[in-house]
């Protein structure tokens, strides 16, 4: 088995990612990963291009484990065209090499060494000693063949020469064609046996003959201003593309052909330079029937290849010449010049012309446009020829080359050169510090880059970070905070499959800190050691926003994307979606913030909901609200625990507790547990009990919970209620111990809530074998199943009727019993949560 480390900067830089190099990089490496034949593929990315990382991770999502995508960080500019970056460029190159070496590949493969002139890519070979074989692709030597066009400037020349030296130092040189191989060997004096040809290819699933509907054809052609049958060119504008001769040949075509066809020039650069090209065309008198489309996407490009009558590629020198292959693959008739690699690509003598001879090109075009048999022959041959080039075949031949090379290399005994990467960089920087200019900021940024690139955490175990930013600030714990505490308590106090750290942050601080105070509280140890260490995340770690602190999640989107780029999975626990689904129960600012929070959640790796109902609601909500994603958003669910004894219970009974408990025992007592807020249905319940009391039904209503929001009208009735203290009880902020006793003294639990994430009181009631009357909402069915009595309707009479019916059943012992209800302990609940996260 060979471990191949692949530098994917060729798919990252603005210079290459939208060109042939970018496509070569992605398609070849994907094909290698898809059929790795037991070899291990590791992909390395430069963190200086953060916007590209998510897209690349998405490309490899189902074909390579995400942990095989490694990212090094480079918080400084190394653009080679700027001479001020010289120190930074040198240091960046070493940082990259040390990182790639640290991945311990048998082979380090760069899909394009010629990167970094206009952006912060760094490439080099063997600045640092390595045990790995180095394989580099040199796509062509066009700049060496046309130095006046490309290498006139000294900065460019120096940069290019340096890259050529790196090619020479590579153990294996890849190139795209036999023609290139000969040029490289001749111009760079590299032995032929060191250079290997791996052909680029096309994705045959995309570039294929297609039948295009009349409407689509009309739409595309009108969008591109094409108004006649057309001959097409696609590609760059460089001098060696030989466009002047194409124009000249076009101008000498027979008049009837010129009058019937348009020449369509496809490409970004062509459009940018349209004025310049138009001037030339005007002089030739053919400006009117030449169209410049500008940038086209893959879909449009395939349609144009399919629709053109002829594709012409007059380039004098190509390392490979991808456009003619794409065109052939789409079934277009293709003509190309008979120089460099193009005969290898096109593979048919009759399809070639002399690119230095306008007349030869014009004649060939005339023949192809007037002789339908010849055109059909070209088309037929093109499809056949294109099928000989596939990324699968290229990947297979490359992997074979790697396997053989590594086998041969391992037979040579060499001392290992593996060293401490960080120390190595420090030594190198020290050695160049007296000769190159840099400042303190450079050292700061280099230090940050090194620390983020190499995991320096002691014993580097995979860690689950639980964000507890909300509960760490709160004195009293309500629903969600109690859940957070119970899960933390369970995970911290018991050995787990993964290291657990509790962390917190604030909206204004991008960093996370160890929540020492909370850990001490959970471990019931003195608050002596409160260092609140700055936490460092390493690839493979997981950050779970267990706590609900919308401000933190919203403000940390950039940080969490940085972490995701680096290989840390980020998840959120979603407790409910009530503020977006039923905004009438909350104030508008909260609803706005909650929606913003959900959008932040939807940009992470996934959400873990506290019930299947919430997971379903989230799935539905995301269908219409989710921002565009490149990788799938994972949604899972678990159930909360309900064993009070393990949930760090609060203690204490008020003085009047015995008297209240006695009153509850005196008649059937109906209990409501939860914050007094509109959605909980307190108003409907109180009104229902007023009806019952008025009808002479002798029952208690016990409300446990603090005053929430938007309940002023209810409280105006509740506080001075004539039954208060007699048959109506409202107990605010009681301890868990007191709540336990009230459960024991009650007859039935009422949950009249119109929306719930989970409904913990249902389970708590079941634990106390307390029967339940609950509103018929999905989560109640999910949690309580057949073990509760359900009611519908929002009128007091609806609930009053339900209570009467339930009392009748209760008196004959035919009411649904809650004690058969399935519920989890916090240990089981935490385990469910952990399993969900680790399953990923």
């Amino acid at each position, binding site marked *: 088995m060979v471990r191949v480390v692949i530098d994917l900067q060729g798919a990252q*830089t*603005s210079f290459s990612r939208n060109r042939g190099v970018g496509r070569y990089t992605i398609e070849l490496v994907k094909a290698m990963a898809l059929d790795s034949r037991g070899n291990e593929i590791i992909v390395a990315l430069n963190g*200086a*291009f*953060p*916007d590209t990382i998510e897209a690349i991770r998405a490309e490899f999502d189902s074909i390579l484990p995400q942990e095989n995508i490694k990212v090094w960080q*480079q*918080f*400084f*500019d190394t*653009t*080679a*065209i*700027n*001479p*001020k970056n010289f120190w930074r460029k040198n240091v960046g190159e070493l940082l990259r090499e040390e990182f790639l070496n640290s991945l311990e590949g048998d082979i380090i493969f760069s899909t394009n060494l010629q990167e970094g*002139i*206009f*952006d*912060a890519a760094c490439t080099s070979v063997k600045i640092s000693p390595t045990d790995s074989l180095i394989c580099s692709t040199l796509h062509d030597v066009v700049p060496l063949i046309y130095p006046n*066009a*490309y290498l*006139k*400037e*000294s*900065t*460019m020349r120096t940069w290019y020469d340096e890259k050529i030296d790196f090619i020479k130092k590579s153990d294996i040189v890849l190139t795209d064609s036999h023609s290139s191989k000969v040029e490289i060997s001749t111009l760079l004096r590299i032995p032929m046996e060191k250079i290997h040809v791996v052909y680029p290819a096309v994705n045959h699933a995309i570039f294929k003959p297609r039948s295009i509907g009349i409407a689509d054809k009309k739409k595309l052609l009108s969008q591109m201003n094409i108004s006649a049958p057309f001959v097409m060119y696609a590609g760059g504008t*460089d001098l060696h593309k030989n466009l002047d001769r194409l124009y000249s040949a076009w101008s000498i075509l027979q008049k009837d052909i010129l009058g019937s066809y348009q020449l369509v020039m496809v490409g970004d*650069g062509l459009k*940018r*330079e349209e004025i310049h090209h138009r001037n030339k065309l005007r002089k030739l008198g053919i400006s009117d029937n030449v169209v410049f489309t500008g940038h086209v996407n893959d879909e449009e490009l395939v349609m144009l290849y399919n629709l053109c009558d002829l594709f012409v590629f007059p380039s004098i020198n190509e390392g490979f010449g991808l456009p003619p292959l794409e065109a052939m693959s789409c079934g277009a008739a293709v003509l190309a010049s008979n120089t460099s690699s193009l005969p290898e690509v096109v593979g048919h003598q009759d399809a070639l012309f002399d690119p230095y001879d306008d007349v030869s090109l014009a004649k060939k075009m005339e023949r192809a446009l007037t002789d339908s048999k010849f055109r059909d022959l070209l088309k037929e041959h093109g499809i056949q020829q294109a099928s000989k080039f596939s990324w699968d075949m290229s990947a297979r031949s490359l992997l074979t080359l790697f396997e053989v090379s590594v086998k041969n290399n391992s037979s040579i005994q060499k001392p290992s050169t593996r060293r401490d990467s*960080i120390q190595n960089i*420090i*030594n190198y*920087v*020290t*050695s160049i*510090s*007296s000769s190159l200019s840099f400042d303190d*900021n450079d*050292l*700061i*940024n*280099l*230090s*940050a880059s*090194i*620390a*983020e690139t190499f995991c*320096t*955490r002691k014993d580097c175990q995979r860690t689950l970070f639980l964000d507890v930013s909300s509960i760490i600030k709160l004195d009293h714990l309500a629903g969600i905070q109690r859940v957070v505490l119970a899960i933390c308590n369970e995970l911290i106090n018991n050995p787990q499959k993964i290291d657990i750290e509790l962390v917190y942050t604030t909206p204004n601080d*991008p*960093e996370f800190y160890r929540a020492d105070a909370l850990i001490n509280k959970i471990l019931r140890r003195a608050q002596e050691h409160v260092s609140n*260490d*700055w936490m*460092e995340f390493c690839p493979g770690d997981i950050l779970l926003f267990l706590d609900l602190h919308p401000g933190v999640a919203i403000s940390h989107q950039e940080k969490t994307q*940085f972490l995701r780029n680096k290989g840390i999975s980020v998840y959120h626990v979603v407790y409910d979606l009530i503020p977006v689904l039923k905004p009438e129960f909350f104030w508008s600012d909260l609803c706005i913030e909650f929606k913003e929070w959900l959008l932040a959640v939807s940009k992470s790796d996934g959400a873990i909901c506290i019930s299947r109902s919430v997971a379903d609601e989230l799935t539905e909500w995301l269908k219409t609200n989710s921002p565009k994603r490149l990788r799938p958003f994972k949604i899972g669910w678990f159930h909360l625990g309900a064993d009070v004894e393990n949930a760090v219970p609060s203690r204490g009974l008020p003085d009047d507790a015995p008297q209240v408990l006695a009153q509850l025992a005196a008649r059937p007592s109906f209990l409501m547990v939860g914050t007094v807020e509109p959605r909980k249905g307190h108003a409907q319940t109180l009104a229902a009990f007023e009806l019952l009391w008025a009808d002479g039904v002798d029952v208690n209503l016990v409300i446990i919970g603090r005053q929430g929001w938007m309940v002023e009208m209810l409280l105006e009735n509740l506080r001075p209620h004539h039954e208060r203290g007699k048959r109506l009880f409202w107990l605010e902020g009681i301890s868990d111990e007191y709540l336990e006793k009230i459960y024991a003294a009650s007859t039935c639990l009422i949950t009249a809530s119109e929306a719930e994430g989970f409904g913990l009181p249902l389970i708590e009631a079941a634990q106390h074998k307390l029967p339940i009357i609950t509103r018929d909402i999905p989560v109640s069915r999910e949690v309580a199943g057949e073990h509760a009595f359900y009611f519908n309707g929002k009128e007091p009479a609806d609930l009053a009727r339900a209570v009467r019916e339930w009392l009748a059943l209760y008196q004959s012992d035919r009411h649904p019993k809650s004690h058969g209800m399935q519920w989890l302990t916090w240990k089981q609940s935490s385990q469910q949560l952990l399993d969900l996260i680790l399953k990923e």
Partner: protein
Amino acid sequence: MLYVFQGTGIGSGMSSSIPQTIRRHIGGLLSPILARLIQFTLAHPTLKIRALDWIFRYPVLEEWLYRFAVEGGLVTRGMTVRAYSDPSKLTPNARIIYNNLKSAIELHNKRD
């Protein structure tokens, strides 16, 4: 934390020291012409290299032109480099590396 945007390889500074009067003139009459000039230069690789080579000799002009190009949408903010400027903002491990780097360089310089 500072975010530096790079598009063409032109430097990262964003402040401008070009006199107000010149800026006003460029902002008014000359800006379309300058924009076309930049567009044309960026579209021609050889010219672009020559222009950048020359511009890098004049940091103030470089900064100003870069800002003009970014604000005018002429330059794509293709690459983002996150940069730090304060050692106290570094993580503990980065700070240790920073201190090690500094002392190693100082020691090396003393020996020289």
